[in-house]
């Protein structure tokens, strides 16, 4: 089954997975070719569970999963030929070397790009002959990323790929991710709680909290819509009812409003008492969004 150019690389619809103490529910996701999606959530939100479902490592209790056009988990073997999966928990096998792993990958994947692998060894400052036991955490992460990247898969699924990396190493691997995206038929889904990385390189964002998708969409739209508005009211004055305000903090005459749907219309409604309108960074948006949805769900 050949996949068309415009087909989604990832499609999840109404996916549910029940554990004794945790339920992932109504998870829907879509990733288009040529895009990077940042998958953001607090610890225990369900990020890794979602990625493991996509890889067919666990089976859903309900819902539909398609990756690169293939039904998961049924057709996972075919799909995985073109997926690179890396999790921060992965380690090279003990008593082996990176070089041994590279030879092994070359023997099973015809797409293995030896030239690119050699370039990555240099860029990531790794030594193929070094024993896995003596590698640092950061070196393990870079080595497993190298093994995934050099296969040149169409889809990269990365679970916390920059965790444990120092700032320079993070810069190196992020540059590699962006290089992959020069080709618009490739895509990346990566989970992270480093919102700085996510804000910088993602095209789309998905927020997950307590097993549910909280919000999903275009990154630029997120950054545009969310604003913090500071108001200083004259004595005795009160604010009118305002739409799209997700949080209202009042301290005497000083009010801070957080909106997820900023517009000039909203500012006009508040009137002449606005003192500042601030854009919010992704971390602020993420926290405000999660808190707002928890309140709305009565948690």
């Amino acid at each position: 089954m050949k996949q068309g150019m415009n087909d989604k690389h990832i499609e999840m619809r109404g996916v549910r997975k029940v554990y004794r103490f945790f339920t992932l529910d109504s998870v829907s996701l879509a990733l288009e070719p040529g895009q990077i999606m940042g998958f953001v959530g607090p610890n225990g939100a369900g990020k890794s569970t979602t990625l493991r479902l996509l890889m067919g490592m666990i089976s859903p209790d309900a819902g539909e999963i398609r990756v690169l056009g293939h039904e998961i988990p049924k057709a996972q073997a075919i799909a995985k030929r073109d997926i690179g999966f890396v999790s921060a928990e992965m380690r090279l096998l003990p008593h082996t070397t990176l070089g041994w792993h590279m030879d092994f990958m070359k023997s099973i994947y015809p797409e293995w790009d030896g030239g690119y692998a050699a370039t990555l060894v240099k860029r990531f400052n790794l030594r193929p002959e070094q024993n896995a036991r003596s590698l640092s955490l950061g070196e393990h992460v870079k080595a497993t990323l190298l093994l995934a990247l050099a296969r040149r898969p169409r889809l990269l699924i990365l679970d916390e790929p920059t965790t444990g990396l120092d700032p320079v190493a993070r810069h190196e691997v992020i540059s590699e991710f962006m290089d992959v995206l020069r080709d618009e038929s490739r895509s990346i889904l990566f989970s992270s709680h480093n919102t700085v990385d996510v804000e910088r390189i993602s095209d789309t964002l998905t927020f997950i909290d307590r097993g549910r998708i909280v919000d999903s969409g275009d990154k630029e739209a997120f950054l545009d819509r969310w604003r913090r508005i500071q108001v200083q009211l004259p004595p005795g004055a009160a604010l009118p009812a305002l739409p799209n305000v997700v949080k209202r903090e009042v301290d005497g005459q000083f009010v801070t409003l957080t909106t997820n749907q900023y517009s000039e219309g909203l500012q006009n409604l508040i009137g002449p008492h606005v003192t500042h309108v601030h854009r919010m960074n992704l971390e602020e948006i993420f926290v405000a969004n999660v808190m707002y949805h928890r309140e709305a769900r009565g948690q």
Partner: protein
Amino acid sequence: MLCIHSMYSGINISQTDPRPMYLQILEQIRARIAARDWPPGKELPSIRALAAGLNVSVITVKRAYLDLETEGVIVTRHGKGSFVADVNGLAGELKEEQLAEHLAQAAEISRLLGLSDDELAARMRRALKNLDAKK
């Protein structure tokens, strides 16, 4: 911030800059065009190449290019890429400013020389005639 990507004339994104990333890119490109470092007709880097060069998302660069296009500073030809706009947009605006400046200077000098308004207008017409004759 370190400037690592000199191949794009040192366009930079700073995390401490309060402006959104797309605006930082947009304004740096606009400055290069206004300074004529990027002359009319120059091809801009492709959206994906610039995104990879700056380590920012494709959608962020796309947004900057779309806004520059709306302003008329660049033109995008489908399948061919984006180019610095020719006379319209910023280049045109710059010429307008230059013209206004030169006319103001001409007016000032004509007063110093004691020329009448008609005499100045006549000289302007003669200058135009000479220019047309050269073509």
